[in-house]
């Protein structure tokens, strides 16, 4: 049985995630999807562009998943990130966990996305009408 799904993809299909995390020993599945928001700090975003150091990103994502499985005794876990150009409302990342009870999957899901944002080598460029900016690059 596949316990961890760790992937970097061109396009995220959100329709299969609950089937992927479904499990007879789980009473709860929690999933977070990050999507492209139209406005950031009042400025209209045209699109986002993601790039990655793929080999390292997959390693870091796998570490996060393994830590979460151990800490919260998860039955299944998924971390999938998209790269390339993404338009408003498109999904860019999906993380999720299934566990016996809901406390564990909620806490794990929050940990997965928070830690991904801190450690996984993926970079996001926000494209506005007249400029583009690498997010978080400068203080």
């Amino acid at each position, binding site marked *: 049985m596949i316990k961890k799904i760790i992937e970097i993809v061109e396009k995220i299909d959100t329709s299969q995630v609950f089937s992927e995390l479904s499990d007879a020993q789980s009473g709860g599945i929690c999933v977070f999807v*990050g999507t492209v928001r139209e406005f950031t700090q009042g400025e209209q975003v045209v699109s986002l562009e*993601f*790039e*990655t*150091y793929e*080999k*390292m*990103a997959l*390693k870091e994502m796998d570490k996060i998943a393994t830590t979460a499985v151990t800490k919260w005794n998860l039955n299944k876990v998924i971390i999938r*990130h998209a790269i390339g150009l993404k338009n408003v409302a498109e999904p*860019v*990342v999906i993380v999720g966990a299934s566990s016996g009870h809901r406390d564990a999957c909620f806490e794990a899901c929050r940990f997965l*996305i928070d830690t*991904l*944002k*801190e*450690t*996984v*080598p*993926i*970079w*996001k*460029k926000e494209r506005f009408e007249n400029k583009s900016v*690498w*997010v*978080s*690059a*400068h*203080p």
Partner: protein
Amino acid sequence: MEILLFGIAKDIVGQAQLRFSATEETPTSVGALKTMIGEKYPEFTKLSSLAIAVNSEYAEDDVSLNRNDEIAIIPPVSGG
């Protein structure tokens, strides 16, 4: 020695890789590499953070570098 560049690091240097020819002096540690690129490209010193990966793992300043290592400059990440 070849150093992979991503995100804003690629923009700062103007290419996807930083190459040291066989005759050039190469940095021998992560810390030395950081100092060297900060001097050559001052824009690196203005970033929120700067990390180096050696063989696709985050590496502290005291980690030594070998010519065959896969080295990458990791500017502030912003996935998710």
